[in-house]
């Protein structure tokens, strides 16, 4: 059948040639992660618009399906929320009074407003890691939109992760549930420091491991964990999640447990990128 007169190279030689190419690429990118950025940008200029479009189509369908399902649920919820609004109105007047007091006291102490709103950019998730080993995704904003490596990413009210790679019109987000990811955190109430590290074996239960809690720390189940001041990548005060199952470690110096993140990592569609980088004081 294949009697083409065209000159053709045997598969063996192509294999050897491409093996050399691959090895070269591995060495090149091991030395310099950004070596192939032009190629990546070129491919992404083609793929990103397609992915954006596909995503919109997919979202439209899922929105329609969801809408039909949720009407009755929403009515019920609406009722409940109305009740909640009343009680919240009450407490909000109280809080605003307290806020005024806090402002006055802050002025007195000349403290900076550290929990101030960080400047943010909204972005859409356009693709997720092809395999099942890592939890990374790509968003549709890149260097052209002012995104830089190590910027923090949040969704809703909780920490999602940080930017680990930036192209012209896309960037890669590595989430905090990713297996090789560690975050320095602290307890919101007691300010005890700890380490939050992702673990693939816990990913399915939507949990993250927390370790290195001081044995004397007065922490209980359900305590809030936020990013700490000593983290060199994360800006302080972003909510990570709630602690559970704290047990003493065998070394009797530290405790460890699990965190339930506030973000639902299985269904992230839009994220906010905090465009302010953490200032670490070292160049």
């Amino acid at each position: 059948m294949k009697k083409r007169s065209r000159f053709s190279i045997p598969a063996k030689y192509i294999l050897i040639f491409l093996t050399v190419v691959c090895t070269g690429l591995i060495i090149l990118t091991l030395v310099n992660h950004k070596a192939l950025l032009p190629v990546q940008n070129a491919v992404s200029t083609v793929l990103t618009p397609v992915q954006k479009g596909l995503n919109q189509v997919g979202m439209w369908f899922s929105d329609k399906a969801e809408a039909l399902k949720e009407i009755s649920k929403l009515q019920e919820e609406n009722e409940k929320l109305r009740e909640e609004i009343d009680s919240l109105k009450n407490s909000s007047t109280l809080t605003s009074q307290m806020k005024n007091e806090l402002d006055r006291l802050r002025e007195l102490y000349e403290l900076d407003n550290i929990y101030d709103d960080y400047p943010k950019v909204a972005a859409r998730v356009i693709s997720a890691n092809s395999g099942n080993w890592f939890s990374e995704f790509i968003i549709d904003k890149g260097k052209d939109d002012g995104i830089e490596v190590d910027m923090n990413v949040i969704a809703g009210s909780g920490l999602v992760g940080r930017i680990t790679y930036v192209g012209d019109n896309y960037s890669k987000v590595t989430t905090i549930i990713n297996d090789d990811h560690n975050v320095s955190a602290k307890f919101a109430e007691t300010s005890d420091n700890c380490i939050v590290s992702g673990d693939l074996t816990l990913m399915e239960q939507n949990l993250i491991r927390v370790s290195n809690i001081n044995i004397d720390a007065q922490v209980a189940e359900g305590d809030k964990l936020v990013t700490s001041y000593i983290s060199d990548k994360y800006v302080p005060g972003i909510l990570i999640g709630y602690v559970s199952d704290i047990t003493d470690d065998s070394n009797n110096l530290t405790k460890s447990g699990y965190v339930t993140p506030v973000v639902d990592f299985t269904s992230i569609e839009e994220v906010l990128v905090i465009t302010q980088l953490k200032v670490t004081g070292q160049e």
Partner: protein
Amino acid sequence: MIRKLIIAILIIISYLCQTTFNRGISIGNITPNLLIILVCIFALLRGKKEGLLIGFFCGLLIDLFYGYADVVGFNSLIYMYLGYIAGIFHDVIYTDDIMIPVVFTAASDLIYNFVYYILSFALRNKLEIEIYFKDIILPEVIYTVFLTVFLYKIYKLINDRLEKYERRKEQGDLYGSGDIGDTI
């Protein structure tokens, strides 16, 4: 020419399904490996050369965006060799039996995940291989095999059409009636 174009489109569609539509096709957070299905089936249908080339480009696409630790080349290398190895059996095995691609895809997916585990997890001292095998590798292989059964029919149909078209074009060339195929 038209074969290259169609295969390029198939690679891109598989990649997009796996990454952009992954929530649509994944069951219980496990995404099937559509690219390895593509590589294996075409390697079995067409042989070593096409297998290794499709494998190389599939791997490269993953590497460019989701390379482990931003290193490009590992996935290309693994996919390429899987394609080549499956391609060796092209001349030996009768490919009309559905079991052959199923077995090859399962084996390839196993090997791929195992190598990937060693490179990215075992080297970081995460050694609980039974847990990873049970929770990650096995579900992925099962789901991938399940899809292979359907995709094999589709890919075989596409390949048959292409081969028929190529044969016709070749005959046309032989009798000197020019490049009728290229005008499509």
